[in-house]
């Protein structure tokens, strides 16, 4: 047994059976972090739109990989991974080359044209509402990375606003447990408390 502190492993999960393409997560993210128009840290993607029986929607952002490809390819080594698994980056080191976009399997990196998120061209992406390398909850951190809700013990904005609770975020143990509970109650002919009013 090890006696090290048990860090969370933060993960997103989006249930495509529940996602209704309402874009609540997208707007919540943008409002919370004052993201410039055109930058989409989170996107809802619908495939087969309008094709009967084949339309699927899912909300996507940085997946905060354990072995993050973006970190491996970055020529300036601007990425760092927190003990809880959240992948962040330092915009002061970023040169906006776009190599991370080559590596990312999900299309998460965004490249602002201008605006509040630093100099033109620096990469921006989902921080899982955990800010960045500047002093926690400082003005500088907000200007470059947005809110740091994790430091305040709050749920990231996207999942907290999800109308159907398709989008979950948190310690992977908790997220998987919710999924397990949902699987167990599936098709049982029972009603359970709402996942949020």
């Amino acid at each position, binding site marked *: 047994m090890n006696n090290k502190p048990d860090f969370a492993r933060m993960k997103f999960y989006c249930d495509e*059976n*529940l996602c*209704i*393409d*309402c*874009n*609540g997560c*997208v*707007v919540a993210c*943008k*409002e919370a972090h004052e993201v410039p*128009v*055109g930058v989409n840290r989170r996107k809802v993607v619908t495939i087969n*739109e*309008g*094709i*009967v*029986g084949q*339309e*699927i*929607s899912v909300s996507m952002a940085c997946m905060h990989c354990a072995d993050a490809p973006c970190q491996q390819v970055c020529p300036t080594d601007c990425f760092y991974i927190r003990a809880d698994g959240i992948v962040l980056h330092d915009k002061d080191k970023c040169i906006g080359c776009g190599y991370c976009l080559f590596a990312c399997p999900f299309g998460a990196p965004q490249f602002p044209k201008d605006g509040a998120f630093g100099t033109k061209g620096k990469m921006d992406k989902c921080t899982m509402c955990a800010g960045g390398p500047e002093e926690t909850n400082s003005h500088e951190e907000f200007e470059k990375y947005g809110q740091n809700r994790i430091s305040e013990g709050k749920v990231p904005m996207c999942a907290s606003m999800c*109308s*159907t*609770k398709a989008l979950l975020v948190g310690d992977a143990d908790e997220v998987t447990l919710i999924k397990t509970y*949902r699987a167990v*109650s*599936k*098709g*049982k*002919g*029972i*009603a*359970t*408390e*709402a*996942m*949020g*009013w």
Partner: protein
Amino acid sequence: MANTWGYGAMTNHIGDMQNSKAIIIFGANPASNHPIAMQHILKAKEQNGAKIIVIDPRYTKTAAKSDVYCRIRTGTDIAFMYGMIRLIRDNNWVDKSFIADRVYGMEDIFTECEKFTPEHVEDVTGCPKELLIQATTAFATAEPGCLIWNQGWTQHTIGSSNTRLGSILQLTLGNMGKPGGGCNILRGHDNVQASTDLGCLADTLPGYYGLSEGSWKYFSKQWNVDYDWLKGRFKSKKMMESKGFSLGLWIHGVLEKENAANNADTPLKALVCIGNGISTITQTHKVKEALDKLDLVVFIDPFVNDAAVITTRGDNMFLLPAATQVETSGTVVNTARSAQWRTKVVEPLYEAREDQEILFDFAKRMGFYKEYVAGMGKGEKFTWPEDATNEIARSLKTIGFQGRTAERIKKHTENWHLFDSVSLKGKGVTEKEYYGLPWPCWTEKHPGSPVLYNINLPVSQGGMGFRNRFGTERNGSDLLSAKGSAPVGSKIDGGYAEITYKNIEELAGITLTAAEKKAVEGKNWKTDDSGILVDKAIEAGLAPYGNARARTIVWNFIDNIPKHREPLHSFRPDLVKQYPAVKDRKNHYRTNVRYESEQNAQEWVKDYPINIVSGRIVEHMGTGTETRASKYLAELSGEMYGEVHPNLAAKLGIKDNEMMWVYGTGEGKIKIRCKYSLRVDENSVFLPQNFSGVWSGESLESKYPKGTAPYSFGESSNQVTSYGYDQQTSCPETKCSLVRLERA
């Protein structure tokens, strides 16, 4: 609905949908318009194994989550439902004992459905008969199933028939009055239920009391004003008791001279518009004309009403800035009759004022402030909004508001976490009460009624039968419910009339004291301020409004039973002869309205060969006045468009993302972007209802007062929606219109 079983409101509630084994979503798109309700629908599907059946002309985001999707032509809902009822009858899925005990007039429905064979339904609606059979089988064999609808049903010339037949469909299956069943009408936006409860309608006083002398006298008492003074405010007693112009029809009171005869010989001269997006009603070009012609126009809104930009009038128009919901406090009522308290977060910013402050100021300047606030009973020293909330609770006895005092509503809101979202039941300090005291909430001890017409609960715990509203007997048939079908714990094992001072002793099996008798003399459950009649009824397990049968026949309507009638501008003129519109109506909400003559004025489809499907999109609300002023919502949806099937677009020579002109059957035309989409069929164009600020190709941005223009603009779809109003309610027909598309 009110004409079927007594109340026109959602019968169950949103969390209750999780108890359903099948859900029909018909003329509604909750994934876009009620995302939170969608959570419960999807939970019913996942956990309860409910089949989700979506019937809609457009393959919506909601339809994408369905098990069965039936695409029908707009305006053919009744044909589809009669097809369902016929199948239900022929397969013996009818709940015979429910009908025998609690329904009047079902035979006529079973006769009418005869002609709607699956083949005929396929011809009328365009939906393959196999899907009709599949949908009906899934719904009828599920126990219980709920029915959800929305403006896709109400905004039609036959909207009132749609909602009635939907109610009747649930009666045939015995799905009423039970958890997981019911008619769950999703209201169009926040607090609509409360608006109609409080009488923001052209034909009733608050609480649906009607406009008769008795109703006015009752309210003059509740408002602490003299009846004759009240009468003196009107031009005549006749006008006092006449329905007003409705939201759909007021423009005709301005523009058409002939309607002056219905309006005390005068055209409408002034308009005060408080928080209403009047460009969401049809024929916006007529709205513009009417606004231009009025002597005075006042808009009271937090954002600039787009109609103020549409009009080209030069003078006598006023924009009064109103506070938003976070700058004010008071109750808000959800779609399911539950109330919640809203607390003021900040004082109104800048020049904005709370609605009541603006209205108080009007009353002061017009000289009736003292009378205006008299109902609260404290002269000018009242506490807002608590005293007003309590006045409402006291006055709206018809819908059982007596228990909804400010104190109780606040207690529920503050203890929000103690309630179960599926049953609405409370714990701890609110044990045995239902969240938000869903009306009817008969007394200050009553817990509220989460599921209407449920006879498996005592009245004191939210149970009741159908309301006795249409008499006790009709053509020799009993209109009261049969023996054995009364709420549990009832002194009377069957039907009974509404409670009055005359029948209370006999029905409740009690003797009133002399003082009690004196207090209730001449009163009934709707007018008794002493509360004795309601208290004694509930003690005896009786619903104050009686226990009667739901009815399928509404003898005071043009269509005694719901009938399919082709839209005025029908895509299928060959069916018009078989299913014609009603005759033109005189003085329908003070307006002479064309039905038959409009339908036959020309063969519309020749010049306007494309059907429109209209609806809201998830990013925007109403006219988009508020949401189009949000940067991020404007980013997601920044421009008006029309969804066109690629095959149709190809025929018309319009490429994806090109601009196209849409010409309506009226004089309106709009220039919008063509968006290729498989959501619509090959005869239709989908037009979102949420845009404004562009007028037939011209931007109106420069007309906004400095700094008030929203981020996104677009043509209003209602410039091309056709003439047409519900034959009973006068709700405008936004759903069935024909247009012509041309490459711009």
